[in-house]
């Protein structure tokens, strides 16, 4: 134990960060009840941690935490300033920049400024299309319209999302990104209950990625859609036969058979 304490290792940095973050989480749980000095104390702790461990990956997380704290206390300008500072500091990292942009969009969204938020979200899609945020943001926009009971705009957003994902899949055929893109396309179609196209997108996955990744879950999804939504037992059985042929030891076979029996 004494040997461990001699010099700070990654574990001790993580421990220190966890304690600081725990304190800031109490602010996030109940921001209205938190006095201003409590916020400043938490921000100071996070910033000094980030400064002390600037080369550590947790420093980035600490800086994001500062922005989230400001946003939780409705200090949106400070939050956006913090996030823009992050983007400038880590401009070489698409992941960090896309995440920061997304949070900037969130701050506008919380303020009720949807158009400004949408601008930020579209920047992510255009500038950082290959990041996780870049892939998820088109669906996030559609979900916003769904929550706001704006079905026309939701359908329009999903249509744009499908076009965007298709372009990505065609630009990077056969890649993990294309796999993810086709999966997102099927999610978009299922959100509009366009089951024919959903199954069509899943079928493309089974054709293009055969032998590259495990497709058992994809087959199961197709069987469920044929059975429950399209009421096409013949196609469902055909897909089950494909699953059994290609993955004879699959643990999904019993679930699929149970599904067909219902």
């Amino acid at each position, binding site marked *: *134990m004494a*040997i*461990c304490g001699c*010099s700070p*290792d*990654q*574990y*001790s940095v*993580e*421990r220190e960060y*966890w304690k600081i973050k725990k304190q800031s989480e109490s602010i996030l749980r109940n921001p209205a009840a938190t006095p201003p000095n409590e916020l400043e104390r938490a921000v100071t702790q996070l910033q000094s941690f980030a400064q002390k461990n600037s080369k550590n990956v947790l420093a980035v997380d600490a800086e994001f935490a500062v922005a989230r704290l400001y946003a939780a206390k409705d200090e949106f300008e400070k939050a956006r300033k913090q996030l823009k500072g992050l983007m400038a500091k880590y401009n070489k990292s698409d992941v960090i920049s896309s995440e920061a942009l997304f949070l900037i969009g969130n701050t506008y969204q919380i303020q009720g400024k949807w158009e400004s938020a949408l601008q930020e979200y579209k920047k992510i899609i255009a500038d950082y299309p290959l990041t996780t945020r870049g892939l998820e943001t088109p669906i996030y926009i559609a979900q916003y319209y769904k929550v706001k009971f704006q079905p026309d705009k939701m359908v329009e957003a999903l249509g744009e999302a499908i076009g965007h994902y298709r372009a990505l899949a065609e630009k990077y055929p056969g890649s993990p990104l294309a796999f993810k893109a086709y999966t997102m396309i099927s999610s978009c179609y299922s959100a509009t209950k366009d089951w024919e196209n959903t199954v069509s997108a899943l079928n493309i996955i089974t054709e293009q990625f055969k032998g590259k990744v495990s497709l058992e879950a994809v087959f199961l999804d197709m069987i469920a859609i044929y059975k429950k939504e399209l009421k096409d037992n013949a196609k469902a059985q055909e897909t089950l036969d494909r699953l059994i042929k290609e993955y004879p030891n699959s*643990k999904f076979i*019993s*679930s699929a058979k*149970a*599904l067909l029996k219902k």
Partner: protein
Amino acid sequence: MAKKKSISIINTYLATFQSLKTQPKLVIPFACFAFVELIFLLLIYVAPRQPFNIVLAPPIRAFWGERFLHYPVNFLLLPKLASHSRNFLSCIIGSLLTGFAVAMVADTYNSKTVHLFSALKNAFRKYLSLFTVVLIINLLFLGLVKVMEMGLIRYFTSGHATLLFLKPVIWLGPILIALNLLLVVLVQGVFVYAIPLLMIENLKLFKAIGRSALLFVKLFLPTLALVGLPVLIYIPIIILQFNAPFLIDRLFPESVLYVCIAAVVINSLVIDLLVTLSTTILFLQNKK
């Protein structure tokens, strides 16, 4: 008959505590085991830290993943690793120390002078048999637990929503824990007299195991009581370890370590001690 059996359990416990009072040296094997177990627990705890992670991190990374080498997620794995290390240590060292303890109990019960060195030497001579008995107990218990768990998982993943009107979260949670405890008591009960038979009656290994099973049947209720009652003390520890995420979130992560330390103390210095001593004394009482 029932009154005779309950008196014999009480008498056995009285004789156990009397033996401990007259010969406090009986605690030595269990204290040694607890000490070694604590060392291993400490090593597991410091596994993510430099310089220990050079040797200890790769197996954790290989079997459980990188996330368990980071704070505070490492505490989620701590009880499981502590349990595995206990199983390992019980075979390697625990078997020898149990034999050592049984030899000392026999001397105490027969009012002979307890010679630590000769009792340990006696246990060393039988080490291979002692090791095999404990290995069989551990493998049998782990095998049965795995079969039970896999059976339940298979049942629920094949489309069944409930079993006896109970949901999977109940079956794979508290019911599985209760079934595990029952298995501990039954498996241990079957083999509990094997070591006294090896050490005191100098039987060969498989004859000792066979006779132990017969004795378990003959002394079914007393054995169940002597093995099962101390195990009940462990239930709060099981509940706490099962709720490690809650402890990490609501208290502090190191509380899981303290629970594991308490588990070592309770297991080795209370449960193992009571079970070994009381069943050996019951064996000797029955022999008379």
